[in-house]
């Protein structure tokens, strides 16, 4: 065996944090390679020692203070690392994690920009596009997904009456007359291409009949 397993992988193997197939591959290697078996054994021993030590931590330990100190130390470490790291060209490069290989960085940058644009477009859609349009788009996507894209909604004007009001749909878009549900008394459809909704004013009793026409 002329190639040994990396120490990081052995550490993960010892703590049981590798995938199933990787675990099997390392296990096969460790059985034959005395050096790697020793290293893995050391990692296991370290883990046991750490568990034993943590069981004996003093009572009344100030976890908040410990956490703050650890955070501060991490920041110091990161800043020190930046001082010694090679300079990265361009401001945008700073947003790319150093762990990404150099040749993949343009792709990562493009992905980040695309994600940002997607979020902006989704926000604009959510704030600007009426819910009825979103529903129409959902219906169209649902029809395409389930393989029956030529539903009648796309064949011409569709007039719909329901307990929520009346609606006229055409070319995937829709127009709905939905007022205060408490005022809606009756909806009706005429086969000549119209629908009506009867609303009653709760104070005066005045009836208002709103109709939409397909043509």
């Amino acid at each position, binding site marked *: 065996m002329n190639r040994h397993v990396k120490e990081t992988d052995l550490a993960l193997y010892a703590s049981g944090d590798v995938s199933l197939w990787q675990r099997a591959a390392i296990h096969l290697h460790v059985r034959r390679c005395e050096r790697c078996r020793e290293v893995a054994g050391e990692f296991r021993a370290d883990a046991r020692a750490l568990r034993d030590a943590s069981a004996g931590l003093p009572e009344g330990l100030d976890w908040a203070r410990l956490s703050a100190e650890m955070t501060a130390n991490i920041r110091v470490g990161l800043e020190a690392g930046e001082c010694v790291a090679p300079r990265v060209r361009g401001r945008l490069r700073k947003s790319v994690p150093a762990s990404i290989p150099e040749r993949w960085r343009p792709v990562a940058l493009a992905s980040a920009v695309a994600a*940002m644009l997607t979020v*902006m*477009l989704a*926000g*604009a859609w959510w*704030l*600007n*596009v*009426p819910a009825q*349009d979103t529903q129409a788009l959902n219906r169209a996507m649902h029809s395409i997904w389930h393989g*029956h894209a*030529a*539903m*009648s909604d796309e*064949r*011409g*004007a*569709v*007039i*719909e*009456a*329901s*307990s929520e009001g009346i609606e*006229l749909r*055409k070319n995937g*878009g829709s*127009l*709905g*007359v939905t*007022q205060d549900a408490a005022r809606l*008394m*009756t*909806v*009706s*459809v*005429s*086969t*000549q*291409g119209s*629908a009506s909704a*009867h*609303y*009653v*004013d*709760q*104070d005066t*009793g*005045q*009836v*208002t*009949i*709103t*109709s*939409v*026409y*397909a*043509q």
Partner: protein
Amino acid sequence: MRNKILILALATAIGSTAQTLGRKLDFPADSPVTAVSSDWSETRATPRGGAYVLDVHAVLSLRNSSQKRIRGVMLAVQAQEVTPGGKGSVSVPSLDVAPGEAFPLRIDLPLLCPLGAGGPMVEVKLDGVLFDDLTFYGSDRLNSRRRMTVWELEARRDRKYFKTLLETAGNDGLQKEILSSIARQADRPSTGVQMVRGRSTNTDPEREVQFAFLHMPDSPVDPTTGTARIAGNEARMPHINIQNRSERGVKHLELGWIVKDQQGREFLAASIPSDVNLAPGKSGLVAQDTALRFSERTQVDSMTGFVSSAEYSDGSYWIPTRGELNDPKLRGVIAPSPEEQRLLQIYRKKGLNGLIEELKKF
């Protein structure tokens, strides 16, 4: 700094898109109603694709400038007449407006109009006014004369029915009937129904189903036979043979179409209006290339038709009597008339005494 740029870009992307909306109240010079005031502050126009969506919310105050009492008004509200979705109407039946009096009319209607150089525009026109002597004024482009006359005749029938009940059965009898009507409204089954013109794309096997008919003794027209094509939750192409059994010509007919599903629920699916021009004793056919689609769980089992109104050639009308509407099959599915809806709301708001006071006005 980067955050500020991001927020600025987002604000630009989602910036306000509401447009200034042009509006026009177009009443003829000799109109029996005049606009006293109008509030359009809630109306908005929003670009959507290649069109504007006009979300019209307006409150008009109209005055009766005629010498007669007004019973009904219908306004045509339109963005662009040739565009589907560009036309609507708002009607107020069951009015009793004396000459010189003002009354409110609320418009809540979304409309579509194409994007154009002139900007979004909504136009409100007077389609018709019905007076207490059943005379009519207006362009009648939306058949407002027929619709408002039928509503007014139904209003007279229902007021007379309740007044007679008050005289014969007293307050308790009237209250019992009102409560029964409120309960019927609450129990009346309803289902979503879509109406499309022409052939549907339903893939279920299609079958021809015969209509059953409710025969009303006083109806001038009798439906004799009829069929529709049924496929799953869809019914289309109603064909109904009719016969004029009266001694007068009938020029227009409206049929009610009741559907029963496989769970036994019955509901009024649609009305079938038709110009028939039927001479006395003659037969004719009402046929429409229309499809009705119900919710997916509604499988159409059977259908019933009935005549809901008819217009004679001389311009007079026939509507069913309260007795005919008391048919057990109709009672549960027919919606109350606009006047009955108004009276029920007065009862809910003001109680029995308020209702009795209202009935005494007529």
